[in-house]
């Protein structure tokens, strides 16, 4: 009897939670959650920005703060994603192919040309900014204004100036002013003394993007070019030969370890206290100052050496572009305008410690480059600033040639004696011809 009573009681309890009722409850909970979130999604769109992870650690948090302020003022959501530069290119390729991804992307160097067909025209944004703060510099127009349309808005660029450790130069009898006046031949002579003193120079001759920053100034100042403005491959020339001969002569006085460097290699080399000279944006000095390293006081920046055809500095450009498949085009444009607004732009320059240079004339007079003594030669530049692969036409071929590191590789093959100078030039010529062939007009 008791058992039957228990069974009856159990049935009455379990009846409350029959399978059907259980499923109904789950369904109701799930759909109400979904609807609630759906409603929330419908009310607050999210704008996403993909950019590179800045070498100056204080910049990324400031950018995130700015974007959050914008999002709060527009009652929208926003997210910034950071990637290292070598990983950024494949990520952009994935987004372009899948037609899915971020709203705003970083147009690094020739990326706007590479994905021209997939990017929105930003004439309204760029022209408005040009009227308010311009004019735009040549490097900005060269990389972002394509076939008469602004495919991206130049955000900032960083250029590779000569970073020096003043103590090591002083030890061989050279003041900063003396180093500033050096040409390439002079650097070669002093490189021998510096190597003897245990602090070699580092003209980055390696398969890395920094290789462009070191080797293109040598190439250009000797009169060499990889590709001309019409897209003809002209790398095989006596001027290129002169540049390769120079690099080969200098290489024995540098550390062989640089062949294994990535973009942080020369930074570490200088910060370790070994290096005496290397082309790099001012992140080496900025990072040492931020970390309060004793070596911070030893760093300074001087113009790149000059050659027979002048003095050049590579400027790597960062622009902001919007994918055509973005679902938040108006908001994305608004965010770009917000970031380029002068007070916000000044905050970015300050957060980057003066690392970011602008393509807009009015922003180039920011006082940071006068108040920080080590940046006096960084902005305004003494040398001509050119994008890597200049004067190649801004087309997909230029970005592909940049991504595949053809120019630095040519130099590496020569300095390691893997190829003779004529063979290395022939190799580079063939590679570039194959890359540029589909884009010949």
């Amino acid at each position: 009897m008791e058992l039957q009573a228990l069974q009856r009681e159990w049935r009455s309890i379990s009846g409350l939670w029959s399978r059907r009722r259980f499923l109904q409850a789950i369904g109701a909970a799930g759909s109400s959650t979904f609807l609630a979130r759906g409603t929330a999604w419908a009310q607050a769109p999210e704008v996403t920005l993909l950019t590179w992870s800045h070498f100056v650690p204080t910049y990324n948090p400031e950018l995130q703060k700015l974007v959050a302020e914008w999002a709060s003022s527009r009652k929208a959501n926003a997210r910034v994603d950071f990637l290292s530069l070598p990983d950024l290119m494949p990520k952009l390729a994935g987004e372009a192919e899948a037609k899915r991804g971020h709203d705003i992307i970083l147009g690094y160097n020739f990326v706007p040309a590479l994905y021209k067909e997939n990017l929105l025209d930003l004439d309204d944004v760029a022209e408005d900014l040009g009227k308010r703060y311009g004019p735009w510099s040549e490097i900005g127009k060269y990389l972002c204004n394509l076939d008469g349309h602004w495919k991206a808005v130049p955000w900032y660029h960083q250029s590779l100036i000569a970073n020096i450790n003043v103590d090591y130069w002083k030890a061989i009898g050279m003041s900063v002013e003396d180093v500033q006046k050096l040409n390439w031949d002079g650097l070669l002579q002093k490189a021998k003394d510096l190597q003897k003193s245990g602090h070699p120079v580092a003209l980055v001759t390696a398969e890395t993007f920094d290789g462009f920053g070191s080797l293109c100034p040598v190439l250009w100042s000797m009169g060499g070019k990889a590709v001309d403005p019409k897209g003809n491959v002209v790398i095989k020339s006596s001027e290129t030969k002169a540049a390769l001969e120079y690099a080969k002569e200098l290489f024995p006085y540098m550390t062989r370890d640089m062949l294994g460097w990535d973009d942080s290699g020369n930074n570490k080399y200088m910060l370790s206290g070994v290096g005496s000279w290397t082309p790099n944006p001012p992140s080496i000095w900025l990072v040492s100052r931020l970390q309060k390293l004793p070596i911070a006081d030893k760093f300074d920046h001087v113009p790149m050496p000059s050659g027979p055809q002048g003095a050049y500095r590579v400027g790597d450009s960062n622009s902001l572009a919007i994918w055509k498949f973005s679902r938040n085009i108006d908001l994305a444009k608004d965010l770009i305008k917000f970031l380029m607004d002068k007070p916000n732009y000044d905050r970015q320059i300050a957060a980057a410690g003066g690392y970011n240079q602008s393509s807009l004339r009015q922003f180039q007079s920011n006082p940071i480059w006068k108040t920080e003594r080590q940046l006096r030669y960084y902005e305004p530049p003494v040398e001509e600033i050119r994008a890597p692969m200049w004067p190649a036409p801004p087309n997909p071929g230029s970005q592909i040639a940049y991504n595949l590191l053809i120019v630095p590789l040519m130099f590496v093959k020569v300095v390691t004696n893997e190829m003779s100078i004529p063979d290395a030039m022939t190799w580079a010529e063939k590679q570039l011809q194959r890359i540029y062939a589909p884009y010949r007009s």
Partner: protein
Amino acid sequence: MRDQRTGYLMVAPALIALAVLIAYPFLLSIYFSLSDKRVGLPGHFIGLENFEALSQDSVFQQTLFNTGLYTVVSVACKLVLGLTLALLLEKVVRGQRLLRGIILLPWVIPASLSTLAWRWMFDPSYSVLNWCLRVVGLGPGVPWLSDPWWARATVISVNVWRGLPFFAICLLAGLVSIPKEFYEAARVDGAGPRARFWYVTLPLLRPILGIVLLYSVIMTVSDFIIVHVLTRGGPLQSTHLFATLAYRIGLAGTRLGMGAAITLFLFPVLVVGAYVLLRIVRRGEEFA
């Protein structure tokens, strides 16, 4: 009949997953390899042009050599060292569970993390290994990542370090499953340790050896993370494997067709190799 239908129904989700996640991408990459597909743009059929261009490209030829060297040396080292380790582990009685667990660690730790740690140890400026060499007076250090041959040795070493536990544990499983009676019988017949190893252990280990070798060859040929993190294919493209070269050309270079052709180049070779190894395995099973 009903059981059959139920069986098909149970297997259907797995088949669908296989079709969507493996068969479709595989067929798509075959199509890409026969086209001039670029990122973001449509491709056109060009037949075997990509493969012809690759066969004449010096970088690809070097990659072919790199992959062959990397695979043969890595797998050989893992086989010899793995078998040695398995034989030693078989003799361990005290603490065997703990020891086997510790030995598995290199294989279990995410490859990108462990390779990043190796990168730090081989770093051109801050290598702890070079520091040790300098401290004990064995010279200024080794160009681990900046000399082509040292870089090859470095990536192979990391691959062996990572793959060795897998070989050891699998072969250990094979060793413990060999009936002791065979060894006793061989001992009674006067066979010494070497003869017992050659005539008893190895033949009975053949099935599992074949499977482990097959798996290891496929995984080593298609390796990506170790080279990508350590050297990115440098210096002078001396460590490029098919996967890293395809990544560079297909994604960084936006030439998806060429990238697909690179990854599929060894597919026929791997199919033949798998067939041969599986036949060895089958012969080993017959022997057992």
